[in-house]
């Protein structure tokens, strides 16, 4: 195993509801990169992400993040997790939500203001979260995970339901974070987002189909379009 990997997964199986949903996966994610986790709905993306942040009971195998067992107490200050559905308090304002999470992770008021600007919610900061649009709530959820400047940021379908402009801005932002040294794992089922990742993990039905760069994927399948390349891969394995 490469000890330099930020996230390392060995022989991971997960059983949910009596069914094995991840089958003995082995994966490594390099530091300072944006890695896309792609696959159709129900392929096991969320389960894999839950295993990496340490909230998933696993049946076998080992997940290490920054050299520590996933879910270790020491990782709680170093890993950020953005759930698929925005995990925010709907009856608090955007600022109140962030102030609460800021005090849990032990950062000050200046960080709250900084992340509000970072996700572009300054104008809405005193608005109750429930009254915000889907995009605003998603950005708030992302903002809460940025407060403690995590070394590893794991995002479960952060761009679902967002408009194209916002999606583009978010991906540019993910790239910026990675350039600053953070490691990002972003799941998506939209293949056009794959082009923006440095590395791709393609999964289907709980198995890893491929781990490669977008260019390698195009080359290997002979398809220029990533959507077509992914279909090519899936059909090749059918």
């Amino acid at each position, binding site marked *: 195993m490469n000890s330099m990997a930020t996230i390392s997964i060995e022989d991971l199986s997960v059983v949910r509801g009596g069914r094995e949903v991840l089958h003995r996966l082995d994966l490594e994610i390099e530091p300072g990169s944006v890695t896309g986790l792609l696959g159709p709905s129900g392929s096991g993306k969320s389960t894999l992400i839950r295993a990496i942040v340490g909230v998933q*009971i696993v049946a076998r195998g080992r997940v290490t993040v920054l050299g520590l067992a996933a879910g270790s107490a020491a990782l*709680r200050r170093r890993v950020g*997790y953005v759930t698929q559905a925005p*995990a925010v*308090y709907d*009856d608090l304002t955007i600022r109140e939500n962030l102030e609460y999470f800021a*005090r*849990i992770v032990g950062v000050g008021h200046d960080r709250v203001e900084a992340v509000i600007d970072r996700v572009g919610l300054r104008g809405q900061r005193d608005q109750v979260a429930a009254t915000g649009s889907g995009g605003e709530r998603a950005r708030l959820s992302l903002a809460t995970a940025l407060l403690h400047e995590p070394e590893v940021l794991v995002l479960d379908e952060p761009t679902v339901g967002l408009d194209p402009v916002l999606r583009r801005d978010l991906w540019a932002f993910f790239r910026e974070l990675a350039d600053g040294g953070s490691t990002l794992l972003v799941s998506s089922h939209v293949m056009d987002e794959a082009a923006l990742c440095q590395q791709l993990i393609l999964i289907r039905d709980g198995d890893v189909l491929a781990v490669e760069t977008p260019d390698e994927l195009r080359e290997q399948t002979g398809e220029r379009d990533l959507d077509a390349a992914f279909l090519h891969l899936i059909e090749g394995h059918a």
Partner: protein
Amino acid sequence: MNAGPTGATALRVLRQLRRDPRTVALIVVVPCVLIFLVDQLFVDQPQVFQQVGVPLLGLFPLISMFLVTSITMLRERTGGTLERLLTLPLAKLDILLGYAIAFAAFATLQAVVVSLVGFGLLDLEVVNPTVLVIALAVANAILGMALGLFLSAFARTEFQAVQFMPAFILPQILLCGLLVPRDEMAEWLQVVSALMPFTYAYDALSRAADDPTLGARFWFDVVVVAGVTLAALALGAATLRRRTP
């Protein structure tokens, strides 16, 4: 206020309540109206009002906080915020204590307002200092919070959580001794009643109202209420799992 995650959680829960002034008003005003109704109901038998008024006053916070906590906690569980919290540097105890502090503060407000109505306007009388009744009411609120927190783990929807009220609270009101003295109940009902925390909460309030010596039984009641609270908190903590299937 800067007491770390526990204080932050308490403040957050209070802010959530503040955002819902209608619920706050209902929790504070409804017991006042009910106690007034009981007073009017027994307008010709003031001794009955004296008998049931204080226990009612002290049991309202238990019921309100049970309901509020089970719904709030259920929302945390189903809304994903609990899972998010448990990936952060926050101890389960921070969550439990944060809730306890917030609801104790809120229950104090409720108990003080109902006491002002009961003792101030309706001539309710107690042989012990009224502050003892308020203290019991707050202890009962924390008991209600602890029970609600634990039972919320067994509800999947808010509908189910609300149904815990008639399923879990009503039998205890029927059997605690408020409607029929316990020693006049069928023996098997006395046994069931002895297993219910409300019975001890009721008994303590009733003694606070008319037993100037309080006596050993009063302190036994207090110990049982405190013990059940701690047990429910421990069970509640066990339902806050960092890892789930």
